[in-house]
């Protein structure tokens, strides 16, 4: 199994036709866990990291969830392959840049476990659309299956012990990836970000910590992991996600009603650029695709076209473009390839009409 197989396989995020995800692109649950009696990866000696990797990979490979999945050691992958995994959110930049990290990924790419990242184990589950409950249950099952095999570091008072004080306790980070073009267009996004920040939620860009919100896509997650139960953390996040989704929907309706022809024009121009441009940068294509996605949600384009747009958002990223071309490309060559791929994917898109939703 290789990264090539991951790219070409049917999977949760690029084959999600029919999912209800007008605003929430995906839901993610992450659990940080460590083996008792062994130093955390950042402080461990190479031999200790090796021991952790061996024990964890053995336990993971024995789980039915990872049958016919992928076991990838970062040291055995090319720079490009690692970058593809990061762009897919299957592994973090930190894991990809380290030498002793490994990842086990389920065949459908919903479950992935990073070994020797900041903690010994980072159990992740991702679902297309807003499905916090089912993502949590999968993570809980993996946690329960691994605990007796590996013996996790746990204290009655502080819960699951982690390398960083910001993860201790539940070790749970629950998040949603949201597409919020109308809140951005109407200038309300800063206010939303501030409000969420004051109530203990973090708002980040498309690729997590320290990244810009390309394509009006934001990741919202809990910051606190200790002192609230998993249920409380998820309830708190759910409440806010519902509110933000509602505000985005209201902003969309207002925008469509107030802007009239301008609203349709923006989507039509985006389609025009994407269908005819010969050079497209990552940033420009993300922004134009964001307008196109909004057009699908609002009935300017048929709703079933949305999944094609989502796919282009993922596959238009720099490492994906190179992996799909099968060659390393510089930035200019990538812009040519990206424009060609998008032209091809959108060639039978219908014309943009007025909003109807």
């Amino acid at each position, binding site marked *: 199994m290789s990264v090539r197989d991951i790219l070409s396989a049917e999977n949760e995020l690029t084959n999600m036709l029919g999912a209800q995800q007008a605003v929430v692109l995906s839901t993610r649950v992450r659990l940080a866990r460590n083996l008792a*009696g062994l130093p955390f990866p950042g402080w461990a000696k190479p031999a200790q990291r090796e021991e952790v990797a061996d024990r964890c990979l053995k336990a993971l490979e024995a789980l039915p969830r990872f049958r016919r999945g992928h076991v990838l050691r970062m040291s055995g992958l090319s720079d490009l392959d690692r970058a593809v995994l990061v762009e897919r959110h299957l592994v973090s930049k930190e894991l990809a840049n380290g030498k002793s990290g490994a990842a086990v990924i389920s065949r459908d790419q919903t479950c992935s476990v990073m070994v020797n990242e900041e903690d010994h184990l980072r159990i992740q589950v991702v679902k297309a659309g807003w499905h916090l409950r089912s993502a949590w249950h999968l993570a809980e099952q993996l946690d329960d299956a691994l605990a007796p095999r590996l013996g996790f570091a746990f204290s009655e008072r*502080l819960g699951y012990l982690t390398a960083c*004080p910001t993860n201790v*306790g539940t070790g749970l980070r629950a998040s949603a990836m949201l597409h919020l073009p109308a809140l951005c267009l109407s200038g309300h996004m800063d206010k939303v970000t501030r409000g969420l920040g004051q109530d203990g939620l973090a708002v980040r860009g498309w690729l997590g910590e320290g990244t810009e919100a390309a394509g009006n896509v934001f990741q919202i997650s809990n910051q*606190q992991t200790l002192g609230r139960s998993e249920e409380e953390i998820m309830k708190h996040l759910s409440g806010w996600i519902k509110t933000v989704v509602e505000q985005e929907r209201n902003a969309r309706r207002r925008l469509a009603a107030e802007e009239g022809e301008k609203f349709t024009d923006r989507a039509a121009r985006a389609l025009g650029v994407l269908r005819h441009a010969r050079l497209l940068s990552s940033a420009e294509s993300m922004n134009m695709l964001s307008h196109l996605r909004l057009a699908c949600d609002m009935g300017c384009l048929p709703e079933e076209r949305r999944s094609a747009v989502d796919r282009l958002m993922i596959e238009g990223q720099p490492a994906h473009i190179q992996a799909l071309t099968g060659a390393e490309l510089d930035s200019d060559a990538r812009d040519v390839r990206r424009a060609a791929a998008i032209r091809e994917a959108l060639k039978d898109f219908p014309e943009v009409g007025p909003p109807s939703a």
Partner: protein
Amino acid sequence: MGDTRQCAICGQPATVHVSHIADGKMVQMHYCEACSQEKGATDPAVFKLVDVLAAQAAQPVLVCPSCGFSDVDFRKRGRLGCPACWEVFGEALGGLLAKVQHEPVHHGRAPAGLQPDEATLRARIESARRELAAAVKAEDFESAARLRDEIARLESSVKTS
């Protein structure tokens, strides 16, 4: 600039304004530059412990017997060395946890198969009761039913332990 608020500590004109939410209410605090530095009001919370430890000594004061990790290492990395470090640095980390976390005590799952002691069980029952009261008040009956079952389960484990 017409801002006449005074520092909460020394009474000098305040230039740093901090808002935070406690129990659903917004609390605003005002500090002058010097006091805000001293209190760490503007620092990202993670660096708070780093400052506390830096003020104490340049030489290691606390060393984990299990992995050799010291407070000096924490200052450099912001991460701990091994699970046993939590015992060694627990007290020093208390202030930081109170700041970056909701409460400095774990509520939630334990590893499958692990039997919590009675004090922990009682603390969990207490917190579940509080959640139950809040759920009933909010007419969230789905959560209330779940919590009622959870309390019954915890109470039966106290009796059998």
